[in-house]
């Protein structure tokens, strides 16, 4: 039996300094809407690599009864502005705008779904909210500072692949500290973006926040990484409800054409409290 398809709308949302490209997935018209999900994409090339998986998950969530919004943040994808004009604060404002827009239309159960650095942005929006949020975090970046450093290392990795002598990251860090932009792997990163990211973490979420994390691994033999395990403990101590699962799959946010990771789709649907259709399970 074929499942009724979710509806897709493509549009631009007015925002500060231009418009944001949006994909809105809604449940089939004969289905009750259970709530909404706002997807927060990862940083730089990871956003493009993960696009297919994110689309699959968004469609699956919509078929399961959620309205799902995928917004390209300022300067990313098909949104207006250049990447180098983007700042961390502008991205936080974009996520907050997306959440507000969805809350007005589907005020029920409200999820923020982040991937990698998108989890840091989701957490920041969650901190600003008056009532506790629900967070679905895919392979969350726990430290913005570490993530920035790893991104800057891409330049070095490019040097290695080309067989050139590697330039190191200290020069880039120095330039950013001077307020200059740096170019890495085709992305021009402003100091305002780098500084905001370097300060971002997942701490200090409001008590009562519900958190589900998915981490890549061999579900039969591996446990959650020590770093995420410590983070879970800190969330629980501060009154949040936090769970994490090890889910098999590929590093789909780093590979342009990696194999599918169906277990991520089904685990995420279960986290949202949805029944998992047979075609996915």
């Amino acid at each position, binding site marked *: 039996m074929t499942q009724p398809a979710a509806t897709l709308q493509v549009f631009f949302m007015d925002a500060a300094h231009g418009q944001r490209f949006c994909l809105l997935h809604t449940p089939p018209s004969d289905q009750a809407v259970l709530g909404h999900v706002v997807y927060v994409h990862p940083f730089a090339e990871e956003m493009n690599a993960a696009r297919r998986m994110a689309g699959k998950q968004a469609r699956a969530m919509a078929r399961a009864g959620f309205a799902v919004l995928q917004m390209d943040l300022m300067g990313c994808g098909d949104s207006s502005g250049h990447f180098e004009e983007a700042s961390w604060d502008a991205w936080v404002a974009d996520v907050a705008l997306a959440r507000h827009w969805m809350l007005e239309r589907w005020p029920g159960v409200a999820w923020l779904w982040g991937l990698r650095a998108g989890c840091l942005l989701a957490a920041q929006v969650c901190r600003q909210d008056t009532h506790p949020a629900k967070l679905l975090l895919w392979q969350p970046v726990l430290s913005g500072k570490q993530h920035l450093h790893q991104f800057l290392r891409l330049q070095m990795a490019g040097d290695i692949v080309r067989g050139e002598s590697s330039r190191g990251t200290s020069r880039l860090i120095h330039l950013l500290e001077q307020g200059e932009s740096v170019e890495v792997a085709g992305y021009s990163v402003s100091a305002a973006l780098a500084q905001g990211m370097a300060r971002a973490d997942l701490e200090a979420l409001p008590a009562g926040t519900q958190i589900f994390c998915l981490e890549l691994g061999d579900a039969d033999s591996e446990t959650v990484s020590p770093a995420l395990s410590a983070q879970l403990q800190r969330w629980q101590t501060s009154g949040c409800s936090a769970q994490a699962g090890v889910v098999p799959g590929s*590093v789909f946010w780093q590979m342009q054409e990696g194999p599918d990771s169906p277990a991520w789709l089904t685990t995420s649907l279960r986290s949202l409290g949805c029944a998992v259709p047979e075609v996915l399970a």
Partner: protein
Amino acid sequence: MAVETDVKKILDSVLSLQGRSAAWQRHTPLLGAVPELDSMAVLGIITALEDRFGFVIHDDDLDSAIFATLGSLSDFVATKLTK
């Protein structure tokens, strides 16, 4: 050699080789021979090695020669582990 097995496992997972690395030997070439090995993948391997073995790889540690063969990468890891 235990380190080599771990390195193969990391390569298999980061590059999504689906078991292809199982047959690799010390002299199996990596850079220039494995099409999946682009800059994102090199970074992924560096990060995965740090996570798996719990050491820090400094910028100065890195050059192309390390990624020449499975043997050179395993030797690099073995040296890091003795420091």
